[in-house]
C-alpha cells in the first residue's frame, strides 16, 4: 500500500508539473506580449488556452536532425540528462502538510529525505551535465561556447546559493525541507529572518535556471541558440521542458525555504475542518509558487542581459561576499541569543 501511495503521488506530481510547464510557456508568451504592447497567441482555443497542445504537437511531428559530425550517442543522451535532473528535484519539495483521503493519512511530499536540502544542491550541480554535453556533442562552436558559459555560470552561482542555504540551516537547525517549512509557522517566514540570504538565493536561482538577465548560455544575438542550436523537434522540446521545469522547481524551492512553503498564517487556529485546512495549504503553496513564477517572467521581459564579465563579477565579487557576510552575521546573532 505504501508503495502504491508513493507511485500515485509521483504520478500526480509529474502530471501537475508537466501541465504547469505547458501553461507557464503560454503565460510567459502572453505576459511578454502584454509588456511589449502586443496581443500574443490567442487563436488556438478560447483565448489561446490550447496553444501549449498545439506547440507540443508541432514539436512531435518536426524532423529530428542530428548534425553529421556530432557525437551521436552523447547528442542523444544530453536532453535526457537535462530532463531527468530537472524533474527529479521536485521529489523532496513538500507541497502540503498531511491529508486524510479514504482513511489513509498521506504526507504531501514524495520523499522526506533527512538531507533534502543537500539533495537539491547536488541536483542543481548535475544540471550542468545536460547543457555541457549538449554543447560539446553538437560539434558547433556556438553550442560549445553556450555549454561552457553555462558550466561556468552554474558553478559560480552554486557557491552563493549553497552559502545562502547555510544561513537557512543555521536558523532552522535542520536539513530536512518539511521541517524547514514547519519552522516557518505563523509569520516566522525566513524571508523576514534572512532577507539578505533570500536576495542572494533568489539571484542564484535566476542564474541556475538560465533566465534573463542571466541567460548567457543561449544569448540569441551572440550565440544563435546557444547549447541547443543543433537540436530540433522532440529533443529541443525536452530542453525547453527542462528549462521551464527548472523554473518551477526553482521557485518551489524559494517558496519552501524563504516564503513559508505551504504555511498559511493563523490557519491552524481557525478551527476549519482538517480536510479543508490541507486543501488551503496546498492552494497557498501553489499561489506562492505562481507569484514567484510571475515575478520571474516579468523580470525576464523588463531587464536587459548582463555582459559575461559583468555576470562573473556580480557572482564572485558581490553575491559571494554578501552571502558569506550573511552567514557570519547570522551565526553571530544566533550565538548572542543562545
Amino acid at each position, binding site marked *: 500500500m505504501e508503495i502504491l501511495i508513493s507511485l500515485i503521488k509521483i504520478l500526480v506530481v509529474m502530471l501537475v508539473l508537466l501541465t504547469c510547464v505547458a501553461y507557464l510557456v503560454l503565460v510567459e508568451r502572453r505576459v511578454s506580449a502584454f509588456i511589449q504592447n502586443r496581443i500574443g497567441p490567442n487563436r488556438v482555443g478560447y483565448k489561446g488556452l490550447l496553444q501549449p497542445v498545439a506547440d507540443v504537437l508541432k514539436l512531435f511531428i518536426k524532423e529530428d536532425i542530428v548534425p553529421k559530425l*556530432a557525437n551521436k550517442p552523447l547528442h542523444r543522451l544530453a536532453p535526457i540528462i537535462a530532463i531527468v535532473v530537472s524533474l527529479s528535484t521536485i521529489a523532496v519539495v513538500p507541497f502540503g502538510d498531511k491529508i486524510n483521503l479514504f482513511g489513509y493519512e498521506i504526507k504531501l511530499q514524495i520523499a522526506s529525505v533527512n*538531507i533534502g536540502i*543537500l539533495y537539491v544542491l*547536488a541536483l*542543481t*550541480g548535475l544540471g550542468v551535465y545536460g547543457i555541457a554535453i549538449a554543447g*560539446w556533442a553538437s560539434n558547433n562552436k556556438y553550442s560549445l561556447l553556450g555549454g*561552457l558559459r553555462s558550466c561556468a555560470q552554474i*558553478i559560480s552561482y552554486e557557491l552563493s546559493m549553497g552559502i545562502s542555504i547555510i544561513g537557512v540551516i543555521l536558523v532552522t537547525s535542520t536539513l530536512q525541507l518539511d521541517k524547514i517549512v514547519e519552522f516557518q509557522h505563523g509569520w516566522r517566514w525566513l524571508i523576514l529572518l534572512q532577507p539578505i540570504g533570500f536576495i542572494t538565493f533568489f539571484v542564484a536561482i535566476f542564474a541556475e535556471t538560465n533566465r534573463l538577465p542571466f541567460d548567457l548560455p543561449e544569448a540569441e544575438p551572440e550565440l544563435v541558440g546557444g547549447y541547443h542550436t543543433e537540436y530540433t523537434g522532440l529533443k529541443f522540446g525536452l530542453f525547453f521542458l527542462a528549462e521551464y521545469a527548472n523554473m518551477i522547481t526553482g521557485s518551489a524551492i524559494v517558496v519552501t525555504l524563504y516564503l513559508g512553503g505551504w504555511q498559511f498564517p493563523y490557519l491552524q487556529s481557525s478551527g476549519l475542518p482538517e480536510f479543508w485546512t490541507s486543501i488551503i495549504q496546498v492552494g497557498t503553496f501553489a499561489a506562492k509558487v505562481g507569484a514567484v513564477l510571475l515575478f520571474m517572467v516579468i523580470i525576464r521581459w523588463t531587464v536587459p542581459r548582463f555582459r559575461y564579465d559583468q555576470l562573473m563579477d556580480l557572482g564572485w565579487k558581490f553575491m559571494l561576499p554578501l552571502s558569506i557576510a550573511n552567514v557570519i552575521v547570522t551565526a553571530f546573532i544566533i550565538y548572542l541569543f543562545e
Partner: protein
Amino acid sequence: MSLIDILFYFFATIAVVSASIVVFSRNIIYSAFSLLFTFFAVAGLYVLLNADFLAITQLLIYVGGILVLMLFGVMLTHKVVSVDMKTGTLKILPAALITSMIAGTLIGIFTVTDWRVAPLQTGDPIPTAKGIGEMFMTTWLLPFEVASVILLIALIGAAIIARREKEAK
C-alpha cells in the same frame, strides 16, 4: 538474498564496469562519462553503509565539482573529431603485471587479516549529519581548519596557473 545484497551487487557491478571503461576506453569523453557512473555507484554503496550525508557530499563534490572540472578540461583540449581524441595505451603488459600483483596483495591481506567488527546496529539507520558536524567542531577542529586553508591555497594557485599571462605591450 535480501534487497541490500542485491543492491550491493548492482552497485559493485556498475562501479567495476564503469571504472574499467574509464581506464580502457579509447575515447576520452566516454571515460569522463563512465567516471560519472562510478561516482554514482560509490555514492550508492555509501548509502548501503548508512553514510547518507557522505553519499550526498560525494555527489556534491565529485559529481557536481571535480567531474565538471574534468569535463571542462576534456572539452577545452579535445574536439569531437580530432585525432588525439583516441589516446592509445602503452606498455600494457608490465602495467597488468604490477596491477595484478597489487590487487593480489591487497585482497590477500584483506582476507587473511581478522578485522575487528562491532555488532551491527539494527533498525532504521540514524542520520549521520549531526554526529559528523559535532566531530568536526570538537575532535577534528584543527584538521578541519587546515583543510579550509588547503582549499584556499588551491583556489589561488589554480587561478594563477590557469590565467593567461599578460602580453608585453
